[in-house]
């Protein structure tokens, strides 16, 4: 061979090529090597494929997964304990699967997630799932990526019918069917809707995550009072059972109403009923506001109980005035206890049904008029009628106080804002007015006070008016603190603050601050005209706050806008 078979150059008698170093003799034909390579590649690949397709996908337990299993294609079986979570923008879907040994987060991306969604293969919370995919081990976190939608197999157990009150933390991950009345619907966050359902046994929340709506459709709009049936799996929120449906279609409206409470007699209520929802009917024996709402007594013949309406519930009543002594009422509410006394607390206005309206102010005809000197602490709780002259006024955030004097004694007439707003002649109720009022005798920090239930229980026999010497706005000094004065002038500026309005007025002698607390400001006649340039006259107490003198009117009528 005169030429090198490797580089083709002339080699003469050499046994090795002097140019490239290749051996000249004893060589394997390239053609043979080529055939061997093709055979090895083709037959080997076929053999590998043959073995691979006959090998089952290995099943591993979550707790077995370790660092060396990174990228393994395996099957994991377990129950969905979190999720599914779905993010349409990124096309990311995930849920957490748990078996007896641990947890694995399962994820699908874009096309796979979309295929799972389109084929309805996305597992729901509580479903038993067998899923194959690629393991990713990253530190303490283990995840499994689904590559093939068909490798997700879901088994959803039959739901067992349950009463809402029977659900306990032991029911975690149990699939249940419940029926109840929608008590409330709220969204504590943008990604979650919580529906409180009630039946006669108790209440439970239905949790509808936003992801569930994105995966299965919009939740039907629900209103309190509607009756529904829900099938879902019990989850826990801080050890409190919640039901998570697998689909929004598992929340179905019922044609019939599911009762939320059983009728009971008031006299049968005991401490053991606390927390229980009851329905009671009877006659209103007394009624009146308190600082955070409205209370009334309900007597059904077997006993009397206090019914407490929080302010928002009370404000939701269609005709609050009808809720007066003598009214026939049916109430559904939760039994609670306050200072040793049982109360029934409706949480929705719709749970207070006035069957027959009360006459309002009926206590006037029945309550005895007593001299003020006869009011003693042992009469607290009685409904009394009092008469006297207003000798002092005071204001607080929840209402106004008027000190009545009949010559022999004094008592505070307390009007909650709702009652004050109900007065027939609020303008006349001021210093020196003659007043007759009927209300429950109560005590607050050792002071007796009469609290009328409504404005109708307060009668202004002779109107009064606050009076004080007119002072120049620039004439007030620190020595005037605590005195009642009248000032007038043009408004120079108005500033709101958290508790009301600050108004500066000036009569040409200098500026002074008039402080209007919200309860006063909201009731000032013509308050919308209190703008810079308007002329106002104010009667109020001079106070000093952080070195600044301010005139603080006590009643809305003490501010006159011209």
């Amino acid at each position, binding site marked *: 061979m005169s030429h090198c078979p490797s580089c083709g150059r002339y080699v003469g008698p050499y046994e090795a090529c002097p140019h490239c170093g290749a051996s000249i003799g004893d060589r394997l034909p390239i053609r043979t090597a080529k055939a061997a390579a093709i055979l090895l590649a083709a037959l080997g690949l076929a053999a590998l494929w043959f073995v*691979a397709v006959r090998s089952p996908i290995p099943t591993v337990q979550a707790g077995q997964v370790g660092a060396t299993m990174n990228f393994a294609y395996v099957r994991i079986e377990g129950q969905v304990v979190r999720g599914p979570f779905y993010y349409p923008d990124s096309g990311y879907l995930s849920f957490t699967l748990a078996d007896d040994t641990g947890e694995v987060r399962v994820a699908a991306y874009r096309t796979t997630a979309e295929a799972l969604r389109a084929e309805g293969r996305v597992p729901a919370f509580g479903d038993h799932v067998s899923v194959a995919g690629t393991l990713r*081990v990253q530190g303490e976190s283990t995840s499994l990526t689904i590559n093939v939608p068909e490798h997700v197999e879901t088994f959803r157990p039959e739901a067992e019918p349950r009463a809402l009150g029977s659900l306990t933390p032991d029911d975690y991950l149990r699939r249940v069917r419940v029926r109840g009345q929608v008590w409330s619907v709220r969204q504590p966050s943008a990604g979650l809707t919580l529906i409180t359902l009630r039946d006669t046994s108790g209440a439970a929340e239905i949790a509808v995550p936003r992801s569930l709506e994105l995966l299965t459709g919009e939740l039907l709009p629900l209103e309190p009072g509607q009756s529904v049936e829900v099938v879902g799996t019990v989850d826990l929120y801080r050890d409190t059972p919640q039901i998570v449906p697998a689909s929004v279609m598992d929340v179905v409206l019922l044609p019939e109403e599911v009762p939320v409470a059983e009728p009971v007699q008031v006299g049968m209520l005991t401490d053991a009923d606390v927390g229980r929802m009851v329905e009671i009917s009877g006659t209103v024996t007394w009624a009146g506001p308190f600082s955070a709402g409205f209370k009334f007594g309900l007597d059904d013949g077997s006993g009397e109980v206090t019914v407490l309406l929080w302010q928002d519930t009370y404000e939701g009543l269609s005709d609050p005035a009808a809720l007066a002594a003598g009214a026939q009422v049916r109430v559904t509410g939760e039994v609670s206890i306050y200072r040793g006394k049982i109360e029934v607390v409706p949480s929705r206005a719709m749970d207070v049904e006035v069957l027959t309206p009360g006459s309002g102010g009926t206590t006037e005809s029945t309550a005895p008029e007593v001299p003020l000197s006869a009011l003693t602490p042992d009469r607290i709780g009685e409904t009394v009628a009092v008469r006297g002259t207003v000798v002092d006024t005071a204001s607080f955030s929840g209402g106004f106080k008027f000190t009545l004097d009949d010559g022999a004694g004094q008592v505070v007439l307390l009007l909650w804002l709702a009652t004050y707003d109900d007065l027939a002649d609020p303008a006349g109720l001021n210093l020196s007015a003659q007043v007759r009022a009927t209300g429950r005798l109560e005590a607050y920090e050792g002071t007796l006070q009469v609290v009328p239930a409504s404005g109708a229980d307060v009668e202004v026999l002779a109107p009064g008016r606050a009076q004080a010497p007119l002072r120049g706005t620039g004439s007030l000094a620190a020595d005037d603190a605590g005195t009642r004065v009248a000032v007038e002038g043009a408004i120079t500026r108005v500033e709101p603050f958290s508790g009301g309005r600050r108004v500066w007025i000036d009569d040409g002698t200098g500026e002074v601050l008039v402080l209007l607390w919200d309860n006063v400001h909201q009731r000032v006649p013509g308050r919308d005209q209190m703008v810079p340039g308007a002329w106002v006259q104010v009667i109020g107490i001079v106070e000093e706050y952080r070195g600044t003198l301010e005139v603080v009117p006590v009643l809305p009528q003490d501010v006159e806008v011209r």
Partner: protein
Amino acid sequence: MSTADFITGLLFAVGGALIASALSLVPALHIYNIAGFLILGTAALGPFLPPEHLAMLFLGMVTSYSILNTIPSIFLSVPDDSTVFVVLPGQKYLMQRRGYEAAVLTGVGGLGGVAALALLTPIAPRLFPALRAILQRHIHWLLWTVIAYMLLSEWPKGTDRQPPGWRRWWDGWKSLTAGLVTFFLSGLLGFVLMYRSILPPASAYQNLLPAFVGLFAVPWVLQNLLARVELPEQHVARSIDITPWLVLRGTVAGALGGLFAAFFPVVTGGIGGFIAGHATAQRDDRLFIVSQGVSKVVYYVGGFLLFFVPGLHLTRGGMAWMVSTLWRPHTPHDYYLAVAAVVATGALSFFLLLRLTRLAIRLVARVHYRRISLATLVLLLLIVAAVPTAGEWIGGGTPASALRAGLDGLLICGVATGIGLIPVLWGSRRMNCMGVLLLPIGLNMIGAGATVAGWLGLIP
């Protein structure tokens, strides 16, 4: 991070570099295999090192390996997927008695790569998260563009000696056809391994090891055995034939390719270097060798460094994937320590390269090339069998199942070898073997992977 922690981290990195320097001389022994055995040891025995120290050890190992693996690539012609391009010009230098110079040129490139990574440090925490945010939604089509460029940029290589007609056409197109067949067959192999691997799950972290050894290392060794090349005596030069301008050009081109490969999923250093080489129109062998030295350092080390970049923590490359199973960096200090470790171990590795290249020259002068190739082949097959066997054994398998796992590894390696021999024998690009990753992952990215796997009967 205290000074003591910083110094401890550096010491572990230097330790890793020294370990890797010794192992880098062993032909075909990839540093990922060694790291894999350490991970396996952790799984079997529990953590023998705090994970943050193990990460620094791995960082030192990968830095040193990325510079020193030049030695077996040039003197023993045993490249991995990112050094395939170094072999051909390296062989040319070797046959011209300039193997030492080729190794030093690659080492200079490696230093350039380390410098590029260090220079990127101030901007990396802002640059790479922004880049990822921009590219994240475009990865799939970019990857297919890379594949298309890789396949379409190969031109017919006929001798023009065949008579006109089919024979002349085939003479020109046979290498192209072989390249396409290689890409297609390695892609099929990738599908089988990704969807229905016959290896046990406990060795899945090295699932592609038998395939990579078969596709890249074994064909070279077989070629060495068959070719019976006699190496000429090597000359240890006291200077290298390169100018600072060429080093700068090579560094820029290599850094571009390496960064592309490091940042982009699936793309390896070889592909990155290839694209950067074309982009910067390299025609000079010296420039090419330097740029490949830069590219593989930036690919291996830069890919791992992305894992440390604050606000990014991107998992790229085998080392990052292995470390991420045990630990994740949390503070910017981890990143700055990592960069410091790379700079220190990079410089150390360059000096080790000079010494170890002389050692390799003495070795190939005394031990016959064929014997080394034979020993390399045995070592490769042992690694291929040992990794799945050990994985299955540690994962609780029986001796029989462990043995079967080893045989399965050899089967995969054998099939891959058959595919890897096709470009060797038909003279097409070996890079087409990267179809093992590119085809299945590219199809997965466009959502067609499962469909194709279904056609192949891989989905039960």
